[in-house]
């Protein structure tokens, strides 16, 4: 009896101890790896800053607004790639947001139930196609088609308009800032559409049905009930798409044309931060290399800010929904 009791006590003590110790080890390991996520972020920032420092020390603030990028004479200014990055992403957003909105409306409100899932998956597969495939398709198929059929049409109509006319000029070669913007738009549509779709689906049915009962058309329900209700989430989704577009590399490197001249015409070839890095990094050294890393740092900070804003909007919505539930 006593032996049994004592062994039992021993066992309990043993398991208890190992439990406490095991728990400590387990929790500690988990904590360590969670902290590693933060270390990666700060590691990226610090290491890039260190490597980019010669450039910032050499050119100062001029690096941000000078447009010459002269490898032979070691003069570097980031203006052209920064502008290229922002403009291509802006074009992608202008085209991508309405299309994503339409897709989200179709999937949540119009499609019959059996169609929702396959269409949704097909749109999401657009996000799974590797970036480099978009590049090949864009360069060998989309760009020539665009240059032959759409671009002349745009130049002869929009190109003659006052003020905005100057943007729709350029040689008919297909590779351009504008083409890059369109390809980016296709690539970010699945991300924006899927956030919008998720948002639209959680709008309370009672809210929608009240609006229908008052005689609203479907469009009025979308525009006056669903959209105001999901505003924060929709903005978050758009920002998420913007973050993706800013850092996209291979597709843009194929279709942007890689020219470091500043043009107002969107049909001229240009460059983005990511495309110039993909092109020049392996031949660079010294100040050239440092300037490319400085570009990477600028890109990282821009996307970090954009994605933080996206996250902030999405978090705010999450909190609001949790609040309304209780």
């Amino acid at each position, binding site marked *: 009896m006593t032996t049994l009791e004592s062994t039992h006590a021993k066992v309990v003590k043993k398991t208890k101890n190992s439990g406490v110790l095991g728990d400590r080890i387990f929790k500690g390991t988990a904590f360590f790896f969670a902290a590693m996520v933060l270390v990666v972020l700060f590691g990226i920032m610090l290491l890039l800053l260190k490597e980019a420092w010669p450039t910032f020390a050499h050119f100062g603030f001029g690096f941000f607004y000078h447009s010459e990028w002269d490898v032979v004479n070691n003069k570097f200014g980031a203006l052209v790639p920064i502008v290229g990055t922002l403009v291509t992403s802006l074009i992608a957003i202008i085209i991508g947001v309405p299309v994503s909105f339409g897709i989200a409306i*179709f999937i949540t409100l119009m499609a019959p139930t059996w169609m929702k899932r396959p269409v949704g998956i097909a749109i999401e597969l657009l996000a799974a196609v590797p970036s480099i495939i978009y*590049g090949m398709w864009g360069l060998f198929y989309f760009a020539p088609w665009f240059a032959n059929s759409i671009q002349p049409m745009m130049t002869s109509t929009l190109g003659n308009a006052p003020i905005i006319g100057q943007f729709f000029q350029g040689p008919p070669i297909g590779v351009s800032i504008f083409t890059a913007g369109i390809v980016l738009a296709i690539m970010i549509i699945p991300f924006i559409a899927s956030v919008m779709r998720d948002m639209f689906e959680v709008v309370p049915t009672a809210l929608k049905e009240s609006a229908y009962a008052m005689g609203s058309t479907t469009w009025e329900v979308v525009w006056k009930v669903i959209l105001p209700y999901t505003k924060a989430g929709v903005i978050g989704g758009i920002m998420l798409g913007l973050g993706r577009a800013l850092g996209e590399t291979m597709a843009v490197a194929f279709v942007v044309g890689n020219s470091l001249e500043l043009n107002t015409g969107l049909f001229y070839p240009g460059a983005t931060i990511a495309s110039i890095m993909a092109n020049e990094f392996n031949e660079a050294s010294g100040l050239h290399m440092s300037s490319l890393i400085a570009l990477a740092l600028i890109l990282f900070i821009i996307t970090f800010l954009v994605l933080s804003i996206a996250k902030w909007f999405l978090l705010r919505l999450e909190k609001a929904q949790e609040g309304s539930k209780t």
Partner: protein
Amino acid sequence: MSKYQIRKLVNYFNLIASLLVTALGLFMLAWILSVLFSKGFQYINWSVFTQMTPPPGSNGGLLNAIFGTLVITFFAVLIGTPIGIMAGTYLSEFGGNSRFSSTVRFINDVLLSAPSIVVGVFVYTLIVKPQGHFSGWAGAIAFAILVIPVVVRTTEDMLKLVPVQLREAAAALGAPRYTVTLTIVYKAALSGMITGVLLATARIMGETAPLLFTALNNQFWSSNMNQPMANMPVVIYQYALSPYDDWQNLAWAAALLITLSVLIMNIMARYTLKGSSSR
């Protein structure tokens, strides 16, 4: 026209526009896939899988590139998955809503969409530059950094779906916390966690930009992870932009292979998740 008619007209116009843009999105997917099949399928033959990447003007295959991509992806997943699962476990099981775990969650979501090219440059400055040469390991580590945020996110989401009662029941039987997590919670969330790993694998397989600065490429067979290593995406990049027909044809074959693998992996991931939720 009455106001009512105008409202109806606006409604029909916008709904038809929605229908059309959805069709446009589907058309783009169909266009890209049909281009890939019509250009790539004819060049896929036995030698693609048995021969090395050729010098321009001669026949060859993609064996070393296929091998390189598989090896780099394998090690990236091997390194990234445990880190991601442990971090996700911390966020779901221990972190709660503390300031630390909120920060990790936030940063993780930012890293999830951060440009992969920046990660490539980071690993270049961290490993390639000090070592003085490109290497397969550098590629695997760059990819591991891309794998981690995906796995962290899915692991946390999936563990949170496991009912608290299950944990409490196990704890009431005297199981220590780590046993509860390892044997009860992981088991319940297993298919969801596998989905995360599959999605992460699909994400890195076709990723090109980080490899340009890390693994680079290798014309020859190499199974040495300390040396530059051939891989599908960089081969596609170099061959597609080359002036040689043989190289371009091989690039299309490689593009078809890599896209099919990525898409199949994506669909598999969805299927795993669907199977678990219906159970």
